[in-house]
């Protein structure tokens, strides 16, 4: 049976991409990842079906990301502005290098999360509906728009 360490190694890129797509900030993404790892580690023995580790881990992470947004939303101090600006600078450079980010940043904001959860994290429509708390029909319609946009962007990049 794979160890916690091995399972985390397999899912770490996915975790990072997911956290970045939601939080759009490297520091916050790292915080959320750390929180999620701790929580997952503490509950690892309760996960009976280890083949679902990826999904389980990503769910925890998404939950932590939203927790963070929820907390951050309340107070933004002025002296954090500089930090935020710097993060944005980092994010910009990361965005230009990452295929995923550079692709996602070309599609509508509300489609990004759906795109990521569906194409990258392999969640089902029902799961996405639950995670984002939106009707399944909305997920489907967003997905349909996402598909066209992503396909045309990626196809073009592939040609280049």
């Amino acid at each position, binding site marked *: 049976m794979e160890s916690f360490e091995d399972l985390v*190694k397999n899912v770490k890129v996915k975790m990072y991409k997911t*956290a970045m797509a939601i939080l759009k900030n490297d520091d916050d993404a790292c915080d959320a990842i750390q929180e999620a*790892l701790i929580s997952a580690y503490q509950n690892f023995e309760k996960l009976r079906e280890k083949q679902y580790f990826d999904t389980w881990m990503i769910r925890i992470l998404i939950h932590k990301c939203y927790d963070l947004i929820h907390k951050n939303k309340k107070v933004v101090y002025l002296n954090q502005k500089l930090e935020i600006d710097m993060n944005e600078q980092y994010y910009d450079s990361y965005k230009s290098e990452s295929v995923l980010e550079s*692709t996602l940043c070309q599609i509508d904001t509300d489609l990004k999360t759906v795109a990521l959860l569906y194409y990258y994290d392999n969640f089902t429509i029902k799961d996405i509906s639950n995670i984002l708390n939106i009707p399944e*029909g909305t997920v489907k*319609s967003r997905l349909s728009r996402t598909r066209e946009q992503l396909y045309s962007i990626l196809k073009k990049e592939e040609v280049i």
Partner: protein
Amino acid sequence: MTDMGKDNFIKEQLEKDILISKKADEVFNHFLKGEKYMKSNQENNHFVQEEKDINRQKKPKNHGWMKLVSVAACFVVIFAGANVYATTQGYKNVFFMIKDLVNKEENVTITEKSEILSDRDITISYSNIEIAEGLNIQINRLIIKDNEAKLYIRIIKDTENQINIKKYIVTDITGNKDVVLGTHNSTLEPNTIEYTEEIKLTGMDNATQKLKLEIIDDKENTLILLEIDLLNKELDLLSYNKNEIFEKLSETELKEILGEYAYIAFENTSNNIEDMRTNRELDIAMTMVIQKGDKTTKENVHKAIKEYLGKDVTDTILDKTGDIYFENGEYKYTPRDGFCPALVLDIPEITYKDGVYTATIIYCFPGEDWSNIEQLEQYQTTMEFTLNTNYTYTKYCLINADEMVKQVYKAASISVSNVVPNNTEEEDFIGTTESEENDDDNLQNVNNYASTMDWTNYSAPGIRFIYPTIFSVEEIGGANRGNRPGEISTKITGIAIGKDPDTGKIIKSNLTITIYEPLYLAKNVDIRQYTTSSNGYEKAGFKTYEGLMWYEDYYKDDDGSKETYTCLRELTNCYEVYKIEFQTGKDWSFKVRNIINWLLGSTKLIERPENEIIIMNEETEETDVFVTDLDQYNPASNDVVISKSEAQRIAQYGFEESKKRIAGEGADNVDSETVTLEEVYANNYFTAKYNESHKNYMKRMCYIVRRENEMGNGIKIYVDATTGLIVGGAAFGD
């Protein structure tokens, strides 16, 4: 390529990206190193613990004699106490009592048998359920391990929230069961904003499929009652607490009912109160009947009076009033110019006790002049209601109304001038109430309204709370209009009266409602793509009484004054999609549901016979976006209605079509796409027959969507900014 093919391609491409930041990499590395450390620590701790246990076992029993003394002392005390108790119970001493107890027949039966539970880990939901303002819960999971079941509930609380959860009660309600599995007292520490409750469930068996969760606050109110379906991982709301139910009813239904049907027929200056009251009763009853879609027959109107007022007028024809008369078995209105007996301005309080709702209502008497409502004196009265359990027209029965009309506010005490928007420059608006000139405008609209209104078809605006009160209704294209789907059907301009959600002040605002001709979509079409912007969402539980589903579009003007709503109705073979736009002078939301109920329910403004319906589906839509007969094309307005992104979506069909007609150079170059808004001549670019020369038609405000290739050759598509139809185009370049 199929959707699945595209999906696979996208997944493949995205998975190629394995870039992660240095910092994130460090987090993983540190954590995983730490994990090893933790694991080895745990192992060490385990070893240390074992060692401690072994040491404990090895320790010599040095104090055995002290224990013996203690035990002996205890026996003496117990024996003495038991002897005293035995004598009080009629026994000689304690030995006789013990003998008697031993000889008694065993009458205890074993009723419960502990079962072995299969281990399960059921993830239920990570969605927030708001159980009070600033208090959310998530029913995360149920874990059964080693024959022990635990339900995990996450509580997310805002610091402002003052509600204290006291306990959780979980009941097995599978089938007809009603067995409490666990009661758990809240472990919430003050000032905690997020925590997880672990509720131990005992007596659960493998057949348990449905649980009921009740959360109770420290005032013993049930905050929420949820059904948890473990099989389907679904949550269903059983009910809120009584106060919550009342609060919801009072805030929505009762206010609507009161706003529309408040019984304030008595004016203290009238010398014929009885007539006015009868008239008002009839008016209310007739409105209820009309809104239900029934005829205003004697039976129906009298039934409504009986339901609303508890008055039995079965055999009496109420035809002695000025406004309403009885003819050919039906009650009818005598049209009067905009007269309204009273206008409800606010319902500041509704209380509930022992089945009776008591509402405080502030109102005024605008009479025939609705232009100076804020200058009129305001009055207050109270009304009491009960619920009708079995009803046709109204759920509420008025049981008592305060006959004493009390004047509570002088007009001067209400400040409205600072919140009335200044839109005098806006052509669409009919002016504010701040100048005499505008008042004249308003009066003109009263007349306009009155002359347009057919009281038998239009529900009287009458008494309205947060309703538009003065209207000018303009039906674009006339009664037999041949407007195309999506074109403007009706414009209503007027003054709306409501309560500013921020300040709580009563305000007046100009209001323009634009109603578009409905679209009819085949059922295989994903409706949301047509009805909403990307931000649109279904408004759960937000339905008109006609059962229309609502979708709200976040589209707003820069000043936030325009809101677009879309709703749809399911017909036999298609969906009927309505788009309605509200434009106010400032950013405040009306209770649009009321307005639309009125528009759709009473006016039947946008109803079409089914045989005239052009059903759009995925195949026909492409051709339907082109205007094929430009000679007959003559939209009544040139307003910009559709958004830039909508125009771009529509233009895509133009680009596809252009590729079939000419070389279509540049049509595929999506990157080069630009959009401008200009007035241009519609033309026969898409409709020209073979050898027909270029021809211009009327000028239209259009989005010009343009694509070109590297050589500067390209295509322009003209999308009518009002109707969203393609009215022409052009090729440019070499």
